[in-house]
């Protein structure tokens, strides 16, 4: 072996080892940490134990958590366990290969494999236009679609689904993917319930009392307010009792955005009048402008009906008070009122940054321009169906792998064993690249894998047939092997480029699962070329190193 070949050996061994490490988080066991509530009961623990029978999972227990290790733990399982009583939170423990310096990623399972639901909603502009009695401009259309997206995001966050995906499609439709949701009706109810934008007057005296109430409860200062709907409701009930709130008032919470995120969290309590001053659709439009001092401000105009209500709300008796704007019962802004406005044109002043002004405008608009969403596509898959698909996919893959390997070994003998080895390597490389791309595997993706097994040996077949021809022409083994590989190169290249063209175009086809199929197929084509033209070629070089080799088992 010369020096070049030694380097090549080291490179190939290293590459294979690296690929194997990369696939560990995907194919290996996964560990899930279930954090329990302090008051978890023994029945609730028993329920967890029976969910994860010890034949299939390794179970660990500590004071406040429950550790599960095994195969088949995915986001859907995580979301399922989250709904168990007595469970506070569920987290995955990172695989060692996922940590630095390797930072491997894993292949995710698509909704069709792990169960879950996909909804595609389309803003129904026609119905808004009917209500407004005029045509919408394109700008308004994009704007209202964006608002709908934001609103949906808020609602889905509240539902506590992990790894939700929300995106806008080119056509303007909104696609929502929720893994592991067992109650599609519940989700639809949640995202379908009408959100309300309301304008109500703040009762300053009681707001102060509510703020005082928190003073001697340092717990909240440290941990912040609870975010769950139920906990917040209970908290507001407790405060109401303690500060003896009259019946015409109620406690709500002021929400602010967590810096640099899309999440909003409750920060302080606010006491509002139950009576509405103004409803969301009383506002006709809102836009950015300046106040008399040249500061940024929000200008808005009400409808004729709204103007009367607004005049009443801003009458002298309310001067100095704040008007709270709430969306879905979350107070998002509370500007103070100084003058009576009866024209229906008003301005909200304050020390606003441009960003704040824009947020406020979008909040007002959310109430002003209601978006009806029409469901244009729904796909939901039960978890049992998903597991069935994975199992049959793996079976098909194994069967195809073994059958093709046997065929190659029978037909090509020793050379067949080399190509069988290449086939396994090809699979390892494919999985490692897809893991590294954080790919989402779907059922058609598995079909792409199975198909690749059939295709992958094509390069070997072309090369071997060529070598056989060269041998038949009377060339020596060494020469036949090297010219076989050389001549086959461009054939393989041209043939595979055309497959790649088809796969590339397929990947442009809108829907997710087909993209998955195209990506697996393309990567399979590329890795199979690499394995055939580099690694198996190297193995043949090693075999034919002996100068006087007379026979080749092919």
């Amino acid at each position, binding site marked *: 072996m010369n020096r070049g070949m030694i380097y090549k050996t080291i490179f190939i061994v290293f590459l294979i080892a690296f690929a194997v490490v990369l696939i560990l988080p995907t194919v290996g066991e996964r560990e899930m940490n279930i954090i329990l509530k302090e008051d978890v009961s023994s029945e609730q623990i028993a329920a967890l134990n029976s969910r994860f029978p010890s034949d299939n999972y390794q179970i660990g227990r500590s004071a406040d958590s429950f550790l599960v290790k095994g195969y088949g733990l995915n986001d859907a399982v995580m979301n399922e366990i989250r709904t168990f009583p007595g469970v506070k939170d569920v987290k995955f423990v990172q695989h060692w290969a996922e940590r630095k310096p390797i930072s491997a990623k894993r292949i995710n399972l698509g909704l069709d494999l792990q169960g879950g639901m996909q909804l595609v909603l389309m803003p129904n502009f026609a*119905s808004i236009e009917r209500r407004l009695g005029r045509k919408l401009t394109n700008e308004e259309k994009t704007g209202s679609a964006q608002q709908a997206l934001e609103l949906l995001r808020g609602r889905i966050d509240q539902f506590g689904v992990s790894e939700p995906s929300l995106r806008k499609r080119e*056509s303007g439709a909104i696609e929502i993917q929720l893994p592991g949701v067992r109650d599609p009706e519940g989700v*639809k109810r949640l995202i379908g319930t009408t959100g309300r934008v309301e304008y109500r007057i703040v009762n300053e005296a009681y707001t102060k009392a509510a703020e005082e109430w928190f003073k001697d409860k340092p717990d909240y200062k440290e941990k912040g307010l609870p975010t769950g709907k139920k906990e917040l409701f209970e908290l507001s009930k407790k405060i109401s009792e303690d500060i003896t709130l009259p019946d015409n008032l109620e406690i709500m919470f002021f929400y602010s955005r967590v810096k640099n995120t899309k999440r909003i969290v409750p920060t302080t309590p606010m006491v509002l009048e139950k009576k509405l001053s103004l409803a969301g659709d009383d506002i006709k439009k809102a836009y950015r402008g300046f106040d008399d001092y040249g500061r940024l401000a929000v200008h808005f105009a009400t409808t004729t009906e709204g103007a009367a209500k607004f005049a009443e709300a801003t009458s002298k008796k309310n001067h100095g008070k704040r008007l709270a704007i709430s969306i879905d019962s979350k107070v998002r802004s509370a500007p103070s009122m100084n003058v009576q406005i009866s024209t229906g044109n008003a301005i909200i002043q304050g020390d606003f940054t441009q960003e704040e002004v824009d947020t406020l405008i979008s909040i007002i608009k959310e109430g002003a321009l209601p978006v009806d969403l029409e469901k244009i596509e729904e796909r939901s898959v039960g978890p049992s169906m998903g597991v069935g698909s994975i199992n049959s996919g793996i079976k098909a893959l194994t069967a195809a792998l073994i059958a093709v390997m046997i065929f190659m070994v029978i037909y090509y003998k020793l050379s067949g064993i080399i190509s069988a080895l290449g086939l396994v390597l090809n699979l390892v490389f494919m999985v490692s690249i897809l893991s590294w791309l954080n790919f989402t595997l779907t059922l058609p993706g598995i079909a792409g894998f*199975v198909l690749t097994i059939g295709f992958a040996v*094509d390069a070997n*077949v072309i090369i071997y047939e060529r070598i056989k021809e060269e041998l038949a022409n009377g060339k020596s083994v060494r020469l036949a092997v090297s010219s076989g590989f050389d001549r086959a190169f461009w054939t393989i290249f041209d043939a595979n480029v055309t497959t790649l063209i088809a796969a590339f*175009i397929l990947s*442009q086809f809108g829907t997710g699962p087909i993209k998955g199929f195209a990506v697996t197929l393309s990567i399979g084509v590329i890795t199979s070329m690499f394995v055939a033209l580099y690694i198996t070629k190297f193995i043949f070089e090693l075999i034919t190193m002996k100068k006087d080799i007379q026979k080749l088992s092919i």
Partner: protein
Amino acid sequence: MDKYLKFIQYRFIGYVVTVVLFIVFITGTVMNGGFNWGIDFVGGIKIIAKFDQSVTAPKIREVLRAGNINADVQKYGGDEVNEYVISTRLPERAAYANVYEGAQERAAEMAAAATGSTLAVTNTGAERIQALLKNNFTNVQIVGIDEVGPAIGDYLKKSAIYLFFWCVALMMVYLAFRFEFRFSVGALAAIVHDVALTFLFCGMFSIEINIPIIAGILTIFGYSVNDTIVVYDRIRENLTNMAKQSFMEIINRSVTQTLSRTILTTITSLIAVFCLYMIGEDVINDFALILLFGFSVGVFSTIFVASPLVYEWNRIKGK
């Protein structure tokens, strides 16, 4: 090495087989009432639900008909579970949609007026079918739902057509660039042959054309070209090495030399697809079935369509 098969001399047999195949498949498709477009393209609802053992398909149909829904109900999966696929196509849906959705929209608008709503999701038929099932049977479990609106179907159909167009165009450009124009023509004919026959195969055997089927057909597309190129590549090589021989002989030799490869690769691919067919379920099953068919006609078209056509083109141009 000097022995080779006389493919070109016998090319007319191939032409006859192609024509007969097309006639049979077209007749079959027409007699079947055209293509069976699935809900991905025409829109509709597909619900898979699990029932108690006593429930049968006629009972489900009856319940749905009482609710004014004319759905197709079929047994799904193995005998050990009592699961059914309930599907409706858009034309059936449209029949009640006017009444139903109209009423619903009014209700939604009234609710909106009452609360100052900002968001209301209009529901379509899937909820109604589910409600009917849940009200009339005990222990209904909804295993899966697919509901596609008409807008999506049109969009997908359009993009599927664009796809084919782009695929053909790019392939032609690549072949013209790597080989010569006369090869492009033969490859195009082989592609059209394989893709059209596979489509007609779906029509003849009532295979529902959904998105996975389109993916399968594009795979056949790529595979067909792949097969053809290996032969063309050899023709190109032999053209430079065997300049003395006639074009017909060169083609015959090239097809013969690559024949073992063509057959072997098809065998390994068919083995893989066959495994998929045997083990995969439902959608994947149809997908595998058309690949089995498409790959088989792919071999035929490579040998009996793509290669002879290069010869024919050469003959016509040569005169």
